[in-house]
């Protein structure tokens, strides 16, 4: 058991294209082709209208809706990064459309709710997956 390897995703038929996109360095989320609503987590059919869905690129920009500072190694991985920040980022594409992600290049003491962030795709240690992380762009002040 290697405590330095973070949990790896298990893609399924609904989520595979998210991971295909990050492997190419892109961030794409699931969107209804009918009502154009973004869906996270992805679904085969839209939860609102039942329409077919597809993955489309998002800008990867948004703001910190909330965050925590991970102080204790409760989950494998990132042990040398402790303490690190995990943010729940509300993306610009749609109110309430959120993605969780680690923040990079950030001082845990200085993060604030409302900070503007942008996504960057990085390698997930321990395998072939790549994941979006968030970098601060401007502070909420």
């Amino acid at each position, binding site marked *: 058991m290697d405590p330095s390897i*973070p*949990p790896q*995703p298990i893609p*399924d038929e609904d989520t595979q294209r998210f991971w295909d996109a990050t492997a190419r360095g892109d961030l794409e989320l699931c969107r209804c082709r009918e009502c154009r609503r973004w869906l996270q*987590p992805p679904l085969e059919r839209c939860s609102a209208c039942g329409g077919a869905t597809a993955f489309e690129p998002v800008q990867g920009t948004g703001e910190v809706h909330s965050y*925590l*500072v991970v102080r204790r190694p*409760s989950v494998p991985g990132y042990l040398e990064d402790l303490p690190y920040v995990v943010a729940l980022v509300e993306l610009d594409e749609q109110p309430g459309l*959120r993605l969780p992600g*680690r923040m990079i290049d950030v001082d845990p003491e200085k993060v604030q709710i409302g900070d503007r962030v942008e996504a960057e795709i990085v390698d997930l240690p321990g395998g072939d997956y790549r994941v979006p992380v968030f970098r601060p762009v401007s502070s909420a002040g």
Partner: protein
Amino acid sequence: MPEAVVVGIGRTEYSRRSGRTTLAMAAEAGRAALADAGLEPGDVDGMASFQVTDSVINVFAAPAIGVDDLAWSADLYGGGDYAAGVVASAATAIATGQCTTALVFRSLNGRSGHRFGTVTGPIEVGGEGQFSAPHGYLVPPQWMAMWARRHQHVYGSTGEDLGQIAVTQREHAVPNPHAIARVPLTMDDYLAGRWIHEPLRVYDCAFEVDGAVALVLTTAERARDLPHRPVRLRGGAEAHCAGSWEQWPDLTTMYSAHAAPRLWSRTGLGPADIDVACLYDCFTYTVMATCEDFGFCGKGEVGDYFAEGRATYGGDVVVNPHGGLLSEGYVHGLNHHFEAVLQLRGDAGERQVPGAETALVTAGAGPYGGAVVYELGA
């Protein structure tokens, strides 16, 4: 329809390392509840429990205590969010004539076995967790830290406000011989507690234990011949909502924003009518959000509510007189029912809430949970 009442309660010791199977503990708690009720295993024809593949299921627990035939059985898959619904389900089964006497239990080695707050690798995660787990964001204390931070941002609540909850509940646990944590806790102790996941400290988290709790429910008619005054289930309400831990619209509220109006409307009661509130407290923040949602105080007022003594003896309502999951121990919320019944019977000894006639038990956190109200029966 027959009315369902609680006539017996039982439990094991709560410890850090039971050295026993969940089957053995379920059997002990079940037998204790039956003995308390003055009933025999042969009287039991229904059983309900909940678990997350960390415990024995009904068809093995029943024969272990001599119950040969379950006319009704429900193994619920879920955490504390089913700790109220599991009792309400048994009451419904009795009320609809599917069984007459039901045993409800929860048994877990929550400390020495699977611990909810920690994961050891390597692991792979599917479902919605595949988007969060790779960031090291996977366990309940992290979700609750995320939510608590949002509450602090929106309402200006503080670590000290959460601390008031931890300190009050510990004060309640001190005279409770069954509680795992009985050393008094001051605000200074709380603030000096190590960070788990900021903004949550160690004293914001439930005290994980090994143990089991069981309740016996039967019809009001059958209860007339039994030794204890029955405790009546006045009503219950559940809310298992869309949104998950990431997409839930307002992190300063929980399932309780939906369940509370349902509960008060069904029971014809309100927060002012409740004498004992066993609020599900996997974390202090759960108490904060649900205490507000159930209407005991306004949003952002919980710190003052506790600091002014309104949540303890002599106040508006006594919150978690046993110390709750934070201090009595994390038996996944079924111990809240044990305490509610004990208090309504007037058998809580040194920590008896004077004149307790109604008790609220809540269960769950985030988007998922429920609640029941108990009152003393005839």
